[in-house]
């Protein structure tokens, strides 16, 4: 037993970078999971991905003007992310274009702009680190940023919970109630952008979406209530971060993909055996239904 304990905990005792990585990815997971649950509920699961691309031009501008400065890239990403979120939201509310299509259009434009800006400067090496994160090399400033954003996100989500749930389940009701739904939605998008921008410090802009969506889709198979799903998504994300870091340590593989794949494993296990709509459960229900049908037919004969 002692041996197992050593295996599971010793890397984090021996190495400060492992503790930092765990702290950073936990902070991220706690905020990103609940956000992901809302994205799943609103059928906007691909929006996280779209937004991750949308912040790229801002990050690139920050990088081009100030080099590898965290502040410049964070501010840049935040600005373009918010611009895209607001514009896409406005277009979808004011025109018949649906929100997903609107986001797709904006993110493709920003992606093009981002790649163009990156190509202006010869070395894209540093930017690749931005896209894929440096979970093992988190600086104190990055750690602070992630923790701060995570706290803000959780507080804001708690404050807007009721409005957001109503907006998810019955948007027409809120639309008749006035502007509060629109504001809640904008606030939600702002939180999303904040988390993506903070998350690129940890997992990179592309993989931060994974820690957001995978625990959320997995949680959906275990719990019915929205609140429960949010808590479970945060826990699953934290577990995946821990497992991914251990895998990276023992199997000698890159850390952030290991974290995302650990979350992916949780997702597929949930799809298979989750009590709410999991494959096993569905198969059992079909069998039970067939048995009941046979039973009733036999009863009719009798």
């Amino acid at each position, binding site marked *: 037993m002692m041996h197992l304990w050593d295996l599971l905990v010793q890397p984090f005792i021996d190495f400060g970078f492992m503790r930092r990585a765990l702290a950073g990815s936990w902070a991220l997971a706690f905020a990103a999971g609940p956000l992901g649950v809302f994205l799943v509920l609103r059928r906007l699961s691909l929006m996280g991905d779209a937004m991750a691309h949308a912040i790229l031009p801002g990050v690139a501008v920050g990088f081009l003007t100030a080099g590898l400065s965290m502040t410049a890239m964070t501010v840049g990403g935040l600005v373009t992310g918010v611009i895209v979120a607001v514009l896409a939201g406005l277009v979808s509310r004011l025109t018949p274009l649906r929100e997903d299509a609107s986001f797709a259009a904006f993110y493709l434009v920003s992606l093009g702009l981002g790649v163009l800006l990156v190509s202006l400067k010869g070395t894209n*090496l540093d930017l690749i680190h931005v896209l894929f994160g440096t979970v093992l090399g988190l600086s104190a400033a990055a750690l602070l940023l992630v923790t701060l954003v995570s706290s803000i996100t959780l507080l804001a989500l708690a404050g807007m919970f009721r409005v957001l749930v109503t907006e998810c389940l019955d948007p027409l009701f809120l639309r008749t109630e006035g502007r509060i739904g629109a504001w809640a939605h904008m606030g939600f998008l702002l939180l999303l952008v904040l988390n993506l921008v903070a998350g690129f410090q940890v997992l990179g802009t592309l993989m931060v979406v994974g820690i957001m969506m995978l625990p959320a889709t997995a949680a959906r198979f275990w719990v019915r209530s929205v609140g429960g799903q949010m808590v479970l998504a945060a826990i699953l994300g934290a577990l995946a971060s821990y497992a991914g870091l251990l895998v990276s340590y023992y199997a000698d593989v890159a850390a952030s993909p290991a974290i995302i794949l650990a979350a992916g494993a949780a997702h597929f296990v949930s799809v298979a055996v989750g009590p709410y709509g999991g494959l096993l459960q569905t198969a059992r229900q079909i069998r039970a239904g067939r048995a009941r049908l046979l039973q009733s037919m036999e009863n009719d004969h009798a």
Partner: protein
Amino acid sequence: MRELWRHLGAGLALCLALGAAARAQEAPAPQAPEARLRVVASFSILADMTREVGGDDIRLDVLVGPGRDAHTFEPSPKDARALGAAQVLVVNGLGFESWMPRLLEASGFKGRTVVASQGVAPRHLSEAEAARDEEGHEEHPHDEADAGHGHGHEAGSVDPHAWQDLGNGVQYVQNIAQGLARADPAHESAYFARADAYIRQLRKADAQWRQQLAAVPEERRVLATSHDAFGYFGAAYGIRILSLVGLSSEAEPSARAMADLLKQVRAQHVSAVFLEHGSGSQALRQVAAEAGVTLGGALYADTLEQPGQDASTYLGMFRWNTKQLLAAWQGDAAPAQ
């Protein structure tokens, strides 16, 4: 996703390059009054050597210019056009310019290719590390237990960074001079005269820095860095190399690799960790902070600085790297960057 990006970018660049090449073929450029030999060098270090040898007798273009990374280079239409018009192409070889075959095809280059590394004894990663381990065992029987872990090194793959040994640099210069002379026999004597003068400089510098580095006690001569580009350097000047990630400067380090490097840094009493110029490796900063060692100055591996700065020439790069190492090893650490 990164792969996808790269493929997209490379595909686009190739399309543009092909377009440019096609246009160039449609309307052949009027014979320029320029009588000088047109030479293209693949990256900044070769360009500097070629400039030393060719002087004013050649017109030199460089594909991967100063401050740019040859590993992630994507050719532009301009590059294809420059190459298409060139009479001589100077490449490093040893698999360094992985993007070159496609660019050659796109540009329709018909001239002479000079492989600068020809004749250099290639260093195979696995062999060299095995050799280093053996060496180490004689003097350091205690601390070689986990040295030389391959972090993504493919066994037997060739390390292309041969110019990091000034002895090889001499061979490079000779190859370049011969190539230029064959392409432009009219200036043969000028090329060889300049090459000889340059080689004398290289030899003198080599002897001088070899002596300075040898003055540092052997156990302090450890170069811990993020990119395994200093294998030839280490072998030539008796420096042990600890590297965080493998040969590719893109690879993200694993937690295992970080932990191994940290253990080695601690076990072998490494006094400083060096960043590679242009890769603000957060991971390496973290290793330095955690092990409580100095973060040495940024070293140049496969690119030079813009003209006018310290490391803007091949010799300048060597001078800079040696200075950073000596400063860190002798205790008074140079400021990073």
